[in-house]
């Protein structure tokens, strides 16, 4: 845990997932160490599980998309300290909507079976996307799925009619399907997927200076990864067996920019409204209370907006 304050070194347990390069680069290139952070990475299957581990004090820092972040802050004394700046148009354009060939426009989705991954923001995305195209959520059937291999097979067999996917591996796989084609991508919708970092308020109170360094380290690690894609691909293959081609293709779309932008804020607001409306979050709360932007402001003053 995070009590070792001695000599300015902060021990952190960080919840990570397999596909994210930033933490791993920061560890293996000594960037954390340089910033006085002694990091241990814990790999989870999904961000949601990593964030859940915060509750049982198994990790100190977790990272995840808006959906699980909001779910977590609604439950206790945790704060979002930064966004990773991935709520960009470029990133959003990597979220592709693949549909069966008989669907040529959004209007054709009416009455169809649409896939979503459980515990993610996809239902929200469907809600917004369909709403914009004049289709109510109750006019389609949403099918919850456990993994992308599942939606791939289901789409191929016609057991579902449309699914959102992300990442080069999936884009290639789904692109090769005879039975389906790409209809649109998320950049054409108002939805931007933010990801952020979450820690306990306790940790912020006791180690705010080191956390500032932590944020700086992350930014530096992401820059390093962007500059050295091959090395990053090697690190990921070695440590988590992510195929090299996948890393190389996805890396340019995922530069982290530690900060807190207007887009990030709007993403959270929209997402939160949806979650409250759909009773996914039972107890409403003030979003501002759960955002602690002092640290990131110290680290990168020009990348943080003022909250009204």
């Amino acid at each position, binding site marked *: 845990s995070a009590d070792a304050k001695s000599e300015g070194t902060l021990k952190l347990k960080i919840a990570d997932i397999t596909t994210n390069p930033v933490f791993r680069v920061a560890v293996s290139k000594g960037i954390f160490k340089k910033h006085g952070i002694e990091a241990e990475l814990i790999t989870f299957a*999904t961000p*949601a*599980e990593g964030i*859940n581990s915060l*509750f*049982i004090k198994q990790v100190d820092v977790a990272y995840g998309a808006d959906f699980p972040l909001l*779910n977590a802050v609604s*439950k206790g004394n945790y704060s979002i300290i930064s966004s990773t700046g991935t709520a960009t148009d470029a990133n959003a354009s990597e979220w592709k909507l693949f549909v069966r060939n008989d669907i040529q426009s959004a209007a054709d989705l009416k009455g169809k079976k649409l896939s979503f991954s*459980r*515990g993610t923001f996809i239902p929200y995305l469907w809600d917004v996307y369909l709403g914009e195209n004049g289709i109510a959520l109750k006019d389609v059937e949403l*099918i*919850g*799925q*456990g*993994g992308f*291999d*599942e939606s791939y*097979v*289901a789409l191929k*067999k016609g*057991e*579902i009619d449309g699914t959102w996917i992300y990442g080069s591996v999936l884009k290639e796989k789904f692109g090769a399907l005879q039975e389906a084609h790409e209809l649109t991508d998320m950049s054409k919708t108002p939805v931007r997927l933010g990801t952020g970092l979450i820690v306990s308020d306790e940790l912020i109170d006791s180690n705010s200076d080191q956390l500032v360094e932590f944020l700086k380290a992350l930014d530096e690690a992401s820059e390093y990864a962007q500059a050295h894609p091959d090395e990053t691909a090697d690190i990921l293959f070695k440590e988590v067996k992510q195929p090299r081609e996948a890393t190389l293709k996805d890396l340019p779309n995922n530069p982290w920019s530690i900060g807190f932008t207007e887009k990030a804020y709007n993403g959270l607001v929209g997402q939160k409204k949806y979650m409250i409306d759909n009773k996914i979050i039972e107890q409403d709360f003030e979003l501002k209370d759960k955002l602690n932007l002092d640290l990131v402001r110290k680290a990168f003053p020009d990348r943080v907006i003022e909250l009204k």
Partner: protein
Amino acid sequence: MSFLRKKWVILLLLWGVGLTLWQLLSLLYGPEVLPGPIYTAKGGLELLEDGSILRYIGISSFRVLMGWSLGSLLAIPVGLIIGKVDIVRTFAEPFLNFIRFIPPIAFITLFLVWFGIGETSKIALILYATFFIVVLNTLTGVLSVEEDKVRSARSMGASEWQILVHVIVPATVPYIFTGIRLAMGTSYMAIIGAEMIASNEGVGYLIWNSRLFFRTDWIFVGLISLGLMGFLTDRAVGFLGRKLLFRYGVVSSTSLRR
């Protein structure tokens, strides 16, 4: 008589102590870590009120029963053939001893690909979980048929086919039954894996989905439902076996080895 009464008192006492301990531990560690009986009961009530837990139990039971009965029906002839035909056995035995270490859950992706995301793949996964146990038990049964039985049938003029139908199969019934009953346990174990595949309902779904929202109380409700379902069907199967297969020497056994 007085001993029997005493036994019940002690039993009640022990269960009482157990429940109290559970509650105390839960208070000590907090409901996040260990949902106590009261907290769990609340969670259960919540799921009971909107009828979902009962629906989930129904759906999961249906899947288990389908996969289990189909698996058993397929496995019995396969086991008989492997047991009877030496050359098939030589080929199949190492394979069986290899595949029995591979858990059903490892086949999720492949089954998806083969059987789609509908009920078929879920049932197929449970079928897989039960298949090999029933095959292995049937096979053991065939190999355990006393030579004297076969010999006496043969010297009374039975053909090889008659021996199979009238001697081997009935003599193997107790083994088949044991296999089927053991497989029942495994099929409940496989339901979580099966309901990881594209499902919005079922006890396995409840347990797995509750992880995402960290509802330990619902996980407990799911676990208890699973245990109860298993326990009750096991008793029912045991009872039916005792009644219907009485003449084949199927007797009750309370504690089964898995």
